[in-house]
């Protein structure tokens, strides 16, 4: 039973990863905590385990075919995230689980606002390849 829940959860998270390009973690951490009753630290640690193999590779292939990939930026970002990630874990591990959960909740709200805001930008004509900036 639990195994079925886990398999279905994985599939659902994967569809969101491909569709919206968001990392699965933002969905996985709350799902692991509430559906599988993990504590906050374990939910986060398990989410990091899932993100180790390139789970987004299949989705990436679809974007690559459309020419929607900036390889240079992607590689630079990966380097920054590797180092930043270590710093973040050093902050999180000594924290109390409930404080960490509260911060995670605040982070989710911030992420939601950013996601929402992005949809409003869609109306603006995009010029992806030029560097021009229409200075606010």
């Amino acid at each position, binding site marked *: 039973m639990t195994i079925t829940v886990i398999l279905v959860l994985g599939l659902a998270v994967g569809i969101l990863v491909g569709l919206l390009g968001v990392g699965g973690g933002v969905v996985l951490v709350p799902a692991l905590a509430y559906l599988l009753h993990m504590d906050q630290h374990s939910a986060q640690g398990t989410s990091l385990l899932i993100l180790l193999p390139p789970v987004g590779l*299949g989705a990436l292939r679809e974007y690559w075919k459309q020419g929607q990939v900036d390889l240079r930026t992607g590689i630079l970002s990966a380097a*920054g*995230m590797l180092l930043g990630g270590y710093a973040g874990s050093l902050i999180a591990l000594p924290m109390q689980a409930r404080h960490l959960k509260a911060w995670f909740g605040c982070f989710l709200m911030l992420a939601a606002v950013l996601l929402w805001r992005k949809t409003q930008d869609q109306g603006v004509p995009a010029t992806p390849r030029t560097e021009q900036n229409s200075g606010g």
Partner: protein
Amino acid sequence: MGNVPARDIGIFLAASVCGVASGLFGIGGGVLLIPLLGLLFAFDQHRAQGTSLVALVPPTGLLAFLAYAKAGYVSWHTGLLLIPGIFLGGIAGGALAKRVSPNHLRRVFAAIVFLVGAWQAVVALRH
């Protein structure tokens, strides 16, 4: 052409901030990286999403993961069972994204994420 080093440094710094969030909250960081690429570096939405997926191909969470694993905060059983579903679902979602405009969906998703976040924060602080 316009690959100014300053822009590269900016991208690296923005990604480092995403990395801190990644280690702090156990997430991939794409949820932060995509809007930052869009808002700071004028990426359109699809390109930001595709580029974020590149950043998530190498195991960027490796150092953070090792720290969590050392502290005993990793459930291998659950984690390994989730991986195939996420991979297959990712292919389906990526193919679907070409056909539908995910705008509406993104808003619904953002609303759900916001509510989950608010709920989690309130529950944690009341405890």
